[in-house]
Each structure stands twice: as C-alpha cells, then as structure tokens.
C-alpha cells in the first residue's frame, strides 16, 4: 500500500501517512471551506490501511487550530483508530498542544471523552 503524503497549505495541514512504518501525522492548521474534499481521501486511505495494519500504529496530531467542520473529520480519523484498537491492534495516539493553548488541550480532552482509545496529551513549549 502506498503512503499518503500531502504538503500543507494556508488552510490544510501536512499529511504524512506511512503505511510501512504505521506512523501517521497531521501537522498545521485545518480550516478548509470544504472539509469533505480534503478529509475524505484521508479516511479512505485509513479504511484501506485498517484491512491490514502494521503491528503498531502511531497517529500524531500536531495542529495549530482547526474549524468545526474539520473537527468532525478528525473524530472520523479517531473512530477508525478506535476500531483498529478494538480489533486487537496496537494503536497509539499523540495529541500535541502549545503549553498555553487551552483550546487545543480542551479539544484533545473532548475527543478523549468520545473515543475509547488512549490519547496521550503532550505539551509543546510555546
């Protein structure tokens, strides 16, 4: 399976999904007008990956900020990771936030309440 790599833009984060290592990253800001257009290929890629995932999958979110339509797709990503986890695969999720960014910390906590996978909250020095 091919890896999925998309460079960041003014409105969309950098995507680095490595099928061979099981490491995936979303980095930057996510404020597209049409979140479906941006996130649907990511979700499709994850569905394909989930059919035959690596022994361990590590997903890193390092987002500056995102709009509410992105937040639904981020939850969609987490739901897919949750499913892999429920099927017995090792899944690690890291959620990074700037030390003073309470909004990003809160959002990470919100997702933690919704999905049943451990999400590690990691503070970045701002």
């Amino acid at each position, binding site marked *: 399976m091919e890896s999925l790599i998309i460079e960041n833009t*003014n*409105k969309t984060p950098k995507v680095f999904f490595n099928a061979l290592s099981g490491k995936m990253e979303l980095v930057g800001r996510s*404020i597209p*007008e*049409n*979140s*479906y257009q941006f996130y649907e290929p990511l979700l499709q890629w994850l569905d394909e990956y989930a059919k035959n995932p690596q022994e361990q999958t590590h997903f890193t979110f390092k987002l*500056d*900020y*995102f*709009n*509410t*339509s992105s*937040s*639904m797709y981020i*939850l969609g990503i987490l739901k897919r990771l949750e499913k892999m986890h429920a099927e017995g695969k090792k899944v690690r999720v890291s959620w990074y936030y*700037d030390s*003073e*960014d*309470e*909004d990003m910390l809160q959002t990470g906590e*919100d997702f933690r*309440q*919704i999905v049943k996978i451990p999400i590690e909250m990691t503070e970045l020095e*701002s």
Partner: protein
Amino acid sequence: MSVVDKYHQIIQKEKVLLAYKGCIDGDTVTYLMKLAEQNIASINEKLIIRKKVISILVEAVQNIVNYFAEESLDKSFENESFVILSMQNNQYEIYVGNYVSRHRMRALKKRIDNVNMMSPEDLQKVYLDILENPKVSITRGAGLGLIDMARRTQNKINYLFAEHDQDHVLFMMNINVARVKNVVLS
C-alpha cells in the same frame, strides 16, 4: 472634514485592524486571515490569543461562505457581506454581516438565542453531542460553529437583523475575544 479624515478618525477611534466589504469566497477567506494575522501580530499580541482570534474569525467568515453555498441569493446580495476586526477595551471584537432570506433569519435567531441561553456546561455537553451525532450535512459544520464560538470565547453572540426588503434582511453578528484569560469562578 474631508472624507479621508472621517474614515481615518473612525479607524483610529475604533482601533480597526481589518475591514472588508464585498463578496467572500474561499480565496477571500485566505487573504483576510493572512491580513488579520499580520495586523494582530503587529501589535505584539501573544501567539495564543492570535490563534484564538483567527480561529473564531475563520468560523464566523466561513459561516457566510457556507450560507451562500447552501442558499443562492442574487449576486448583488453576496457583494454586501462584510467583516470587521477591531481591538477595544482589552478585547478583540469581530463583526460580520451578510444578507439572508427571511426564512433563514428565523432559523438563525432561534439558534443563536438558544446558544446564548446555555451555561458553559450546557454548551460543552451540546458541543460533544453534535460532534458525535451530526444531525445535518457533515460537509457544512452541522451548526457546531456557533456553539464552538460561544464555548471558546465564553461570551454571548450579539446579533441584529436590519430590514431590507420583503424577502431579505441584513444579518449582523458580533463576538468578542478577551485578551486576557476569562476567569471562571467555580
């Protein structure tokens, strides 16, 4: 007083950081965000507040883009949309406006009144509920935007509808972002 003088005085007095009137599409949003970021940075605002103001501004402006994508009004109405960002009384003030149909006005009024009546705990609960079970089209934010703005700013959403004609009204909305952390008393 000359016109230029008049405008300059308004900009100074109201501490306007950004003002735009015209059609708002995806590209406009990109430019507006870039200018807003630069202008907030130029007054040495803390990164964390900058991020908050920009993200709330994005949500407010994209509401307009999404509205015109959903309901097509005459182009002349789209050209009357506006956005203003100012910094007064230790808070950033975001004002947006756009024409809407009367039908939309009723739905908006109900939705904002509803959001304004909620306690911070209610907002948090409803936010999580909608996030998990979006009722409307997932592509368009499911009305989560207003709830998220109120939740994150801990402020009420002020709004006004100005009469225009039989079928249309001008919807104006204001939301403020405090420069210092709001203290929540427990």
